[in-house]
């Protein structure tokens, strides 16, 4: 698969968001922090969890999705003696059931040269089409209690332009002077710390794909993820970004050139 955009499809339409520990609902106050926002925002539980399961669940109107992204998944694994097994589940109308797919751990830009990224992506084996709920369940099997912290949980319907992006040279993120700045998205109200930018061009994009791209909910308001599952463009596979701006240039009714400028969000230890 080529480079895809992973917006928080379920987050934009969710009718409920629950975090459960052994099926007892906990924490309501800070759940919005895992729907959108910067990497410095966390959902944080009052106490650690031991010997129990823990679920983050979105409830939404039936909507398609293909990926689940957990930002700062590394924080869920503290202390390191914790052993947890993630399971992705979904409800297509007859109750929650496991979703077949693959996990991609320790990816994302290695900002601190720690040798691994901070995020996790789950890819469903087949696109989900009629789910009304999707959840990430963490089965805590042994070890110390979990820290129960996570920055973002996205349930995404991946968007691809249908063509590979065009890079004349190796794509290079331009780091900002003085370590970064804050940026307020064109259609948003909240400012985000950002540290670098990258402009990507896709050529010969069909009219339908242009419309699909522009219809992504909160495209110019919420951060999204760039996922390169084959590490063909980004060795670290995943970028957590804002769309700064874009342009659509069209000199033929059928094909357009789409240029998007992405801003990399500030990372934290």
């Amino acid at each position, binding site marked *: 698969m080529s480079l895809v955009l992973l917006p928080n499809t379920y987050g934009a339409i969710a009718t409920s968001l629950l975090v459960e520990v052994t099926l007892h609902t906990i924490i309501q106050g800070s759940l919005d922090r895992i729907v959108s926002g910067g990497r410095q925002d966390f959902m944080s539980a009052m106490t650690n969890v031991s010997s129990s399961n823990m679920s983050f669940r979105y409830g939404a109107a039936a909507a398609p999705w293909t990926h689940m992204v957990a930002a700062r998944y590394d924080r869920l694994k503290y202390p390191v003696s914790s052993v947890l097994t993630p399971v992705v589940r979904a409800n297509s109308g007859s109750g929650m059931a496991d979703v077949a797919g693959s996990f991609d751990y320790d990816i994302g830009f290695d900002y601190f040269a720690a040798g691994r990224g901070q995020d996790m992506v789950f890819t469903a084996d087949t696109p989900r089409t009629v789910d009304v709920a999707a959840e990430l369940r963490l089965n805590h099997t042994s070890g110390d209690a979990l820290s129960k912290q996570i920055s973002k949980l996205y349930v995404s319907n991946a968007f691809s332009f249908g063509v590979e992006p065009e890079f004349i040279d190796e794509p290079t993120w331009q780091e900002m002077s003085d370590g970064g700045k804050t940026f307020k998205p*064109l*259609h*948003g109200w909240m400012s985000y710390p950002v540290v670098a930018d990258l402009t990507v061009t896709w050529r010969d994009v069909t*009219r*339908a794909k*242009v*419309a699909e791209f*522009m*219809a992504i*909910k*909160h495209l*110019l308001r919420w951060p999204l993820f760039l996922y390169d599952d084959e590490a063909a463009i980004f060795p670290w596979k995943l970028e957590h970004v804002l769309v700064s*701006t*874009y*342009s*659509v*240039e*069209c*000199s*033929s*009714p059928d094909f357009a050139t789409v240029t998007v400028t992405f801003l990399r969000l500030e990372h934290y230890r």
Partner: protein
Amino acid sequence: MFRIITNSFFENCGQAVMTSGGSFIDFDNNKTLNLTDGPRHLYYTSATTGDRRFLYKSTNAPQTYDAVVVVNADLHNGRDVSIRDTDNIGDNTRFSEASFAQTLVGPTAKDFVYLATTPHENVTRVEFRLNSSYIKTIHQVYAGKSVAVAQVLGYSRTPVSRLTKVFIGRQMYQIQERITIDVEGVSDELMQEIASLPRIRKSPFFIYDPTGQWFSEKLFHVVMENNPISKRFNNLNDLSFSFLVLRYER
């Protein structure tokens, strides 16, 4: 090809009224002018659930029109909707659906366009009729003679900040994006036709791509940003329209 649709019928006839069918409505008539112009969030609401007929009445010479645009027509889904007019022959029903279920257009797929195959001439009255029993919230209803612009070379689209706004006269408009459309080889006659569109620089209007040849959304509610004319030769003009699309929510 795309079409420019202004509210030319209203601008040339000058009278917009709301009736219940038989009689002039005065108890909820005070916002009728919201339907003739202005930003998309302005509307009219009926005080009762009875029938409403929104009329453009010509007190001047008869008019020609070929397009009616209804903003936020999704508010009338499942209702009895019709478009009628009166010409020098008599009354005509141009569109009628007892349970409105048309495919809507625009970036949020909420607007309805009626486009006649040939313009309706000698018309003294255009009527947007809502017959079902419900409180009727109606946004802009435009009736006008559209101008077709062919020889489109291409376009570009860029988003703008949600804080971007323009003032036209005393009215502020929030802007969603900028669309630039390049056109070549436009005749002087068409140039004159575009220039003479009523209030083209003073009011919002629509650009409509009926077949979705260039834009999947087909319809945009816009204001003009620039003066697009550049003359190449006699009777041959190149245009670069810059439209500012009025704010819409996804």
